[in-house]
């Protein structure tokens, strides 16, 4: 009977394909074979090899499959698999559910590849609901794919085709799955699972608290490679001989001297010290302006117990530029006067609103001292405001007395070439496309900007002129950022690469390639040895600047990554995506410490406070949010082993008056500076 079926299938196949001759020949042969069979009664090995009674059912199945050769098979197979998974044991259901999405995607792509657009669309519409919640953006991208040619062009489809998806499941779940696939002869599904899914089997029971919303992210690397990559040694400590380091040493020396002179420290100072000693948080390390705090850290360098408090010092791999003495002095002074922040001491926020932008402001940037504000516009222009000067003109009681907004804007008067009496800003023209990002150098002498015209430009703020135009990217450059010490900078582009440059060379020093989609943002590590990039492929990667190697891949975002920030001790990184989620990463382990949920719009910008105890985030939902980072820092440090995934605390939500927050920056004295374009909705009525 089996044999007959196969024969029928072959016939049908030939008929369908229009192989008339072969069909006739086949029929002829069949006839003769049958007569031969009946006459001789022996099982001869006839033509076509179809008569072998002990033929592998799998082969038969596949022939059968090709014979039917229409799209309904995928639909049947998938819907069976789906209902099986949904009716499976609860304990293993969560793990099994994870394979549905990749199977769904590949079924769809197979259908498209085999040129069944109609069936493909039907299949897609039937089952898309299952995945809408988790993979809406991917589905949008896939939806339009309707011909084999599209498959080759679509970035996402290619990524799916070329990479296996990593799924972890326990031994038993895996067996269940295999058993099902074999027993039901669903060769199609089995084939997809084999070909495109990399199932990692781990022994034991499935984890009792499954990360049910685990994002499936393509990384372009097999899981083993990923794991080994994330195991690479990372020296995440702060930079040796940095100014902060110097200051600490200086203060430690002072403190020791003071202690030697006599123990006239007041009682409350003593209290503070004990408190600081007890607190194993990053804050104690950063309490530089507090004498006792530094004395504690000074001692900590010697004693083993306190060693963990300090971030390790790391030698730079890059030749470091030297700082002018004047700026160094000034920075040290600022650091000394830094306000201590924490959950009880929230920062003051000075907000720079751009008004009358007519929706043309693309980016904003604030200099380290808050005195300069730059805006990049869609009309290719770049405008720089000197807030110190504006403040002086207004002589406003409010802003004038602000601690550190303008008071430490000791920048010399600039050349005012383009300034006239009416406009208070300096206009920098040169780009030939929308300006997507701008960044001040740490010493405020230079400004970098990148644009849709594929170039990065360097501007001198003393001359108000364009100095260099860096060409190298082939597509619009989305982001550019100076290294913490200046001189070097990194850019991120639509061409899926990030590049590292130094100011005096026209060509990039390194090209960091590996992202599967646009590189949307870039961020230097505090010790300048690493660069983090966020991409539209939903991953964040960390690269070694010296070797250009990818050191870490962080997966977990569900949308494009729009903003990054590094904590000042170099241990943590925060990344914000277009869905409003912020993830905190431990660079050392490559794991997500905790998600920070709350924003309802794109997170445009993130900033850690100077001593790393607060994280500020600015979003398209017109709010600035302040998060307590210390809590998580402690948790991950002390309770890391016990997998204490504690939520970071949202300390405060500061709504603005319909002003999306484009840029945030903590000044060296820990004043939070924010900028955004005031964009009132036309329909909204002013309330007052």
């Amino acid at each position, binding site marked *: 009977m089996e044999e007959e079926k196969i024969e029928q299938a072959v016939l049908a196949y030939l008929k369908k394909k229009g192989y008339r001759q072969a069909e006739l020949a086949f029929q002829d042969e069949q006839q003769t074979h049958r007569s031969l069979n009946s006459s001789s009664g022996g099982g001869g090995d006839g033509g076509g090899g179809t008569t072998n009674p002990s033929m592998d059912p799998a082969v038969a199945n596949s022939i059968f499959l090709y014979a039917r050769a229409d799209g309904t098979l995928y639909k049947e197979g998938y819907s069976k698999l789906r209902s099986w998974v949904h009716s499976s044991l609860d304990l293993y259901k969560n793990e099994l559910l994870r394979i549905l999405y990749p199977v769904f995607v590949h079924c769809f792509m197979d259908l498209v590849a085999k040129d069944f657009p109609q069936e493909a669309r039907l299949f897609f519409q039937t089952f898309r609901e299952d995945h809408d919640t988790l993979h809406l953006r991917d589905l949008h991208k896939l939806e339009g794919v309707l011909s084999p040619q*599209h498959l080759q062009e679509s970035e996402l489809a290619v990524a799916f085709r070329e990479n296996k998806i990593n799924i972890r499941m326990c031994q038993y779940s895996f067996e269940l799955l295999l058993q099902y696939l074999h027993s039901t002869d669903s060769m199609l599904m089995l084939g997809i699972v084999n070909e495109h899914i990399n199932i990692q089997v781990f022994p034991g029971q499935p984890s009792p608290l499954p990360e049910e919303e685990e994002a499936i992210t393509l990384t372009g690397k097999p899981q083993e490679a990923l794991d080994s990559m994330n195991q690479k040694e990372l020296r995440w400590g702060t930079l040796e001989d940095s100014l902060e380091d110097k200051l600490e040493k200086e203060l430690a020396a002072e403190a020791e001297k003071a202690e030697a002179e006599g123990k006239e420290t007041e009682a409350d100072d003593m209290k503070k010290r004990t408190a600081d000693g007890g607190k194993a948080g990053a804050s104690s390390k950063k309490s530089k302006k507090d004498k006792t705090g530094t004395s504690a850290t000074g001692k900590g360098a010697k004693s083993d117990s306190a060693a963990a408090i300090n971030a390790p010092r790391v030698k730079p791999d890059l030749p470091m530029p030297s700082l002018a003495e004047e700026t160094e002095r000034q920075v040290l002074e600022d650091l000394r006067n830094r306000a201590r922040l924490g959950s009880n001491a929230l920062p003051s926020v000075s907000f720079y609103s751009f008004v009358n932008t007519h929706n043309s402001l*693309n980016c904003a940037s604030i200099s380290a001292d808050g005195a300069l504000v730059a805006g990049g516009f*869609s009309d290719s222009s770049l405008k720089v405001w000197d807030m110190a000067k504006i403040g002086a003109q207004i002589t406003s009681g409010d802003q004038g007395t602000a601690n550190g*907004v303008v008071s430490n804007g000791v920048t010399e008067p600039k050349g005012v070439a383009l300034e006239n009496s*009416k406009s208070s800003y300096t206009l920098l023209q040169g780009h030939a496309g*929308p300006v997507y990002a701008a960044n001040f150098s740490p010493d405020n002498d230079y400004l970098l900007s990148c644009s849709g015209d594929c170039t990065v430009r360097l501007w001198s703020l003393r001359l108000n002129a364009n100095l260099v135009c860096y060409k190298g990217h082939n597509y619009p450059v989305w982001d550019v950022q100076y290294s913490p010490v200046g001189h070097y900078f990194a850019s991120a582009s639509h061409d899926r690469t990030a590049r590292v440059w130094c100011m005096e060379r026209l060509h990039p020093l390194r090209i960091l390639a590996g992202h599967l989609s646009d590189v949307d943002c870039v961020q230097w590590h505090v010790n300048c040895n690493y660069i983090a990039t966020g991409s539209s492929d939903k991953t964040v990667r960390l690269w070694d600047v010296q070797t250009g190697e990818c050191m870490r891949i962080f997966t977990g975002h569900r949308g*494009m990554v729009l903003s990054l920030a590094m904590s000042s001790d170099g241990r943590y990184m925060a990344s914000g995506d277009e869905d409003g989620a912020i993830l905190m990463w431990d660079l050392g382990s490559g794991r997500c410490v905790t998600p920070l949920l709350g924003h309802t719009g794109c997170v445009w910008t993130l900033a850690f406070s100077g001593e790393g105890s607060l994280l500020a985030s600015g979003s398209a939902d017109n709010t600035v949010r302040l998060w307590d980072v210390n809590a998580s820092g402690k948790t991950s440090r002390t309770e890391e082993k016990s997998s204490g995934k504690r939520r970071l605390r949202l*300390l405060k939500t*500061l709504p603005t008056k319909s002003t999306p927050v484009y840029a945030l920056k903590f000044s060296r004295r820990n004043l939070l500076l924010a900028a955004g374009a005031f964009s009132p909705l036309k329909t909204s009525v002013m309330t*007052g």
Partner: protein
Amino acid sequence: MSIVPKDTIHVIAQSIGISNLQDDVAAALAPDVEYRMREIMQEAIKCMRHSKRSILTTDDVDSALRLRNVEPLYGFASGDPLRFRRALGHSDLFYVEDRDLEFKEIIDAPLPRAPLDTSVVAHWLAVEGVQPAIPENAPIENLAVPPETKRGDAHGGGPRKEDDGAIEVKIPVKHVLSRELQLYFEKITELIVAGSDTLLLRDAFLSVATDSGLHPLVPYFTQFVADEVTRGLEDFPLLFSLMRLVQSLLLNPHIHIEPYLHQLMPSVITCLVAKRLGGRAVENHWELRDFTASLVAFICKRFGHTYQNLQPRVTRTLLHAFLDPKRALTQHYGAIRGLSALGSRVVRLLVLPNLELYLHLLAPELSPETQQNEMKRYEAWRVYGALLSASGACVYEKMKAHPYSLPTVSTSTRPKIISPSRKRSAGTDLGQPSQKKSHVEGGLLASDATGSVTEGRNFDGGEGSSQAEDVDGGKSRGVESGSMDDGGRRLGVEANRSNERKSFSLAEAWKEDVDFGSLLLSLVDLFGDSMLPFIPTEEMSLFL
């Protein structure tokens, strides 16, 4: 299968001059068109994100096209929404409206206004984590009424907690006023202090009464009013202006004045019942008192339901002023005006029962023989007039409400004013409550004696006694009788009658269903014919 129908492909083909496009060609093209469109939109969304916008514009689409090395679409400037028109005769064919423009028109047209140049303004979004209530920040309604106050009210400790700016202490908000508001405040206060009743001042009050966004200034205004009233009791025009300012603030619909009422009320009450208002006697402080009385009534009417104890406290304070014979006549006048402004119910409840007694006191002041000082006499007549109009209005309203029955007893033989008798046997009907209440009243009077002009500030005195005067029948009756007793000015007639007839028309005026005829008659007795104009004409006919 594709969301782009074949017909669309045909239409597009026709628009570029291919009229005989094969059907299968169109069918093959459709999915590709869809894919390309999706691709472009995807890129456009990327561009939108990097422009930090959440609304897709035609610019983004152009950038996306450029990214894909496609010529951008010209002529669709960002900003103006495209207007699609339906083609005549086709239900699903649309085109972009593209008007012909006359060069001449464009050249002749006046230049459009230049758009404002971009600029940057700095403000404090937060000061040490707390958002100042300035116009640059998002309006925060709950800052105006801090939760502490509400909670305080909720569990009943209301009056004490609200006292004297306690709220201001509780709010950890550092008020940062914008320059504009500061200027505004300065201008307004300057105008008021300058004191000339100019047109400008009138406009200023109008502005305070109507402008939105003044809320941040309310605490400053209330403080200003309080300060100026205590400082400027001698300055009549200033006081008047201040009261008008208060009125404007109350009228402004954009202001939550409730949390500041407790600060405002003492000043207002002071302006009503102060002994002397204005430096010279010639100044028309009566007018100010009348105005303030209406203001008080307005406040009680508007906020009475949210602050249950507001009106009782106001009436209590006024009653004190009214019943204390040691007070100046001006104070009595203010109190009477205030009470009468609160409505006829209050008058019936609190004024009428004391009327006879009071008139008795007033009599010597009225006649030139006993009161030589003409000023005093004038004041007395003023008070008399206030009383008359208060009771008259009350009667009038009552008459209007109940088209009336004839009086049942004739009391017309009663002498107008009867000499006081100290004798009073505690009637069986009054005994119980009056004894209980009389000592309360005694306490009240004692505190009255020590009270001064600014007693209005002592707004939340003994709680128990304020309840005593609450709209509680038995109690208030006790108070009345007690007060009469204490004052020792009981009317002999009443004393005589109290045994045989248990209702005194006046003393029981608070009762809703009081025998109205007798009330009226006793009023006519007291006031004589001057009461008659208050009686509606048709009712009058009954009497006549």
